[in-house]
């Protein structure tokens, strides 16, 4: 590719946070008149790259070149002035202002200090007309659908920047028709010579709109490809860091009697906008793995099963008896446990001690009036600290001061203290060191040997294969495949994740 084609380039872009290198010498280039998809799993460095480009973060090393000239945006306004506009998934406009005010805030036409309303509304109408949108611009923004708000956001960003447009998951909350409408707008801008960076978890959309794809993994550049030379399987392999040639001998585990009555039976349970209705039996002593790309519906599955996001259809039975799962309280009462994906925001309470964090779920189940005696609390905490090898000076240390792996173990201890029959673990091994990693996997195996049932969500396919009796594959918010025992291999999982929607009908079981 020739130098002159590059509208925006980064060379050796590096950004380090305490403990992690979020971007490691990433080269990226964007041409004028192309839609360039930026792909990668959680923590791959997509958002860090975007934040460096828009000035939200200052890079530690490397160059950003806009049309060949080095730039150094200090904040988003600076980036806008340079010609780089961004539209986020959450519409960053003000719902309480009119559409016209949103489009022209800070640039309203004035006469002797007073805003000329009519001129402002005319200009706003003209701006939107370019996108084929004819709406009443004097109404408040929140009178319109998210798709229209997105287009208004794009119109504002483009009118202020005009060279590079970054779309950060703009389609996450849109339905099919709205996505089509948005893509028409994006194509129009591309044909006008804008360079567009498109971030999305929906691979179908990437294949539909993108011209080229850059894949990041663990902060490093994996590759840049023309979309024409890629198929879904290859793309998923790139994102998950596996090569097609790689042979994996390892398969899942057997030994579960699927003819016996299941412990839990989810029939046709689903929630609109989160996960399509699915059937799932959970057997005694079984580990069910859930695989899928980020945003595919894997976390939504867990939240639904725990009552955190109540189901709007289907039913659940426990040991043959109907079970009501309208809230986490119901779930805890039925002997469920749930260790969520983001332990920092929805798991641990950083200022409370290790002991208090461990006792929390048990106390909640007993009800706050029946306090767990302090002696029992101490016994429990000390017991789990020993059993799970939680590295802490003592049980009274604030949990926020522990390392990630030890926090994760304390979270596990919280649920184990309630003696759950069914434990849901969402990404139990993310962001923890190798040693703690192995211990948590060993613990998962021990727990299921003791008769507990587990549902584990993980992006680490090797890990899923190692401990799962069954793997559910989720794509585009639908359970698309179920692999059992010998059939579980990383290749089979990757293929199921990558298979285009059209072929998704058959079931691998």
């Amino acid at each position: 590719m020739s130098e002159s084609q590059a509208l925006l380039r980064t060379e050796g872009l590096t950004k380090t946070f305490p403990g992690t290198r979020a971007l490691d010498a990433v080269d990226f280039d964007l041409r004028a008149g192309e839609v360039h998809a930026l792909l990668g799993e959680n923590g791959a460095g997509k958002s860090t790259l975007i934040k460096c480009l828009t000035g939200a973060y200052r890079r530690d090393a490397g160059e950003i070149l806009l049309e060949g000239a080095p730039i150094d945006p200090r904040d988003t306004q600076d980036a806008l002035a340079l010609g780089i506009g961004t539209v986020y998934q959450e519409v960053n406009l003000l719902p309480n202002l009119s559409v016209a005010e949103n489009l022209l805030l800070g640039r309203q036409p004035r006469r002797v200090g007073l805003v000329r309303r009519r001129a402002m509304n005319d200009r706003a109408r003209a701006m939107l007309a370019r996108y084929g949108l004819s709406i009443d611009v004097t109404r408040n923004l929140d009178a319109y659908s998210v798709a229209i708000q997105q287009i208004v956001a794009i119109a504002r960003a483009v009118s202020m920047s005009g060279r590079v447009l970054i779309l950060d998951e703009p389609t996450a909350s849109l339905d099919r028709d709205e996505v089509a409408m948005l893509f028409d707008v994006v194509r129009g801008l591309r044909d006008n010579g804008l360079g567009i960076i498109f971030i999305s978890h929906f691979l179908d959309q990437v294949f539909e709109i993108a011209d080229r794809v850059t894949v990041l993994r663990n902060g490093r550049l994996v590759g840049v490809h023309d979309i024409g030379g890629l198929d879904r399987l290859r793309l998923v392999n790139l994102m998950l860091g596996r090569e097609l040639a790689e042979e994996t001998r390892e398969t899942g585990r057997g030994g579960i009697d699927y003819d016996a009555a299941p412990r839990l039976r989810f029939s046709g349970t689903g929630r609109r906008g989160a996960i399509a209705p699915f059937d799932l039996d959970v057997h005694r002593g079984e580990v069910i793995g859930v695989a899928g790309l980020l945003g595919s519906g894997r976390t939504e599955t867990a939240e639904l099963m725990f009552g955190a996001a109540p189901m709007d259809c289907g039913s659940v039975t426990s040991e043959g008896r109907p079970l009501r799962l309208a809230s986490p309280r119901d779930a805890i009462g039925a002997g469920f446990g749930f260790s969520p994906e983001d332990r920092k925001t929805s798991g641990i309470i950083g200022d409370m001690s290790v002991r208090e964090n461990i006792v929390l779920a048990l106390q909640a189940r007993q009800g706050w009036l029946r306090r767990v005696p302090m002696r029992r609390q101490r016994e429990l905490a000390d017991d789990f600290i020993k059993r799970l090898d939680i590295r802490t000076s003592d049980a009274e240390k604030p949990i926020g001061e522990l390392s990630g792996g030890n926090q994760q173990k304390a979270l596990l201890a919280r649920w184990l203290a309630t003696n759950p029959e069914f434990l849901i673990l969402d990404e139990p091994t993310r962001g923890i060191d190798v040693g703690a990693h192995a211990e948590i996997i060993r613990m998962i195996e021990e727990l299921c040997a003791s008769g507990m049932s587990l549902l584990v969500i993980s992006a680490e396919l090797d890990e899923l294969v190692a401990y799962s009796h069954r793997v559910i594959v989720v794509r585009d918010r639908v359970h698309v495949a179920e692999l059992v025992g010998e059939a579980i291999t990383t290749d089979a999982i990757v293929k199921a994740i990558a298979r285009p929607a059209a072929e998704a009908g058959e079931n691998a079981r």
Partner: protein
Amino acid sequence: MNPRLLPFLATVVIFVVAYVICWLQFPAMLSTRVIGNLLTDGAFLGIVAVGMTFVILSGGIDLSVGSVIAFSGVFVAVMLRDTGIHPVPVFVLLLAITTAFGAAMGLIIHVLQMPPFIVTLAGMFLARGMAYVLSVDSIPIAHPFYDWVQTAYWLMPGKGRLTLIGATMLAVFVAGILLAHRTRFGANVFALGGGVQTARLMGVPVGRTTVLIYALSGLLAGLSGIVFSFYTSAGYSLATVGVELDAIAAVVIGGTLLTGGSGFVAGTLIGVLIMGLIQTYITFDGTLSSWWTKIIIGALLLAFIVLQKALLDITAKRASAREAG
């Protein structure tokens, strides 16, 4: 129709209905005399409520204004008693002080990221304390300029008097309406009320706007203090206790969302007039305790907050219905 107009329209309807009820009982209430008195009596509250409207529109609150009014009165009275300076330069000096005081609170709110409630609560004690330091007694004001202003009025048809201080309030409202609804600054105030983080991302100068909003509130509190000194011909450090709460009530009854981002400065005028109307009714009636004013205002306030909450829920429901559909 824009659902956000509803609280404002409700205020107007309540005002008209209330006035009709008053008129049916006391036909004399429909006269320019009563209207002139409503404007004069409501002048100091109306002026300070305009500043409060901006503060609340931006999602903040200013608890200091009642104390600032008292401080202003005492300051003016002491200056006129102890120095030979003409009132006009004293006013200019006072307005500079109260504006700077408001700006300082805005700066603290922005720079230290402190809740406006706490910062202006501190400002409330500070201003009241400064008033005590100047004088603990009520100081009468006697100056030819005061006599002139107090007798300056325009005789409306029907022998009603539009006094200078009543006219000042109307002028402040006109300026406030233009500033809020027709300038970039006004749009920025609404933007802050819609969401500070988003406003910042959209390029609103958050710091400057915050400082200006509280400076404006301080300026108008000072002006209100001057008007109050004309109204009472005295400066007293114990005066206007709780006026900040009356101002907040007027703003909310006027249809401005207490959480910010939505409302009309004109609504605040109606809010002030409704409060004055209740007071006038009680005066006309003669047998009712004047505490009934507080009770009715309390009931109105409650009704408006419930109305606003209901409107928010309706808008949210509509939005989610659209998402699903």
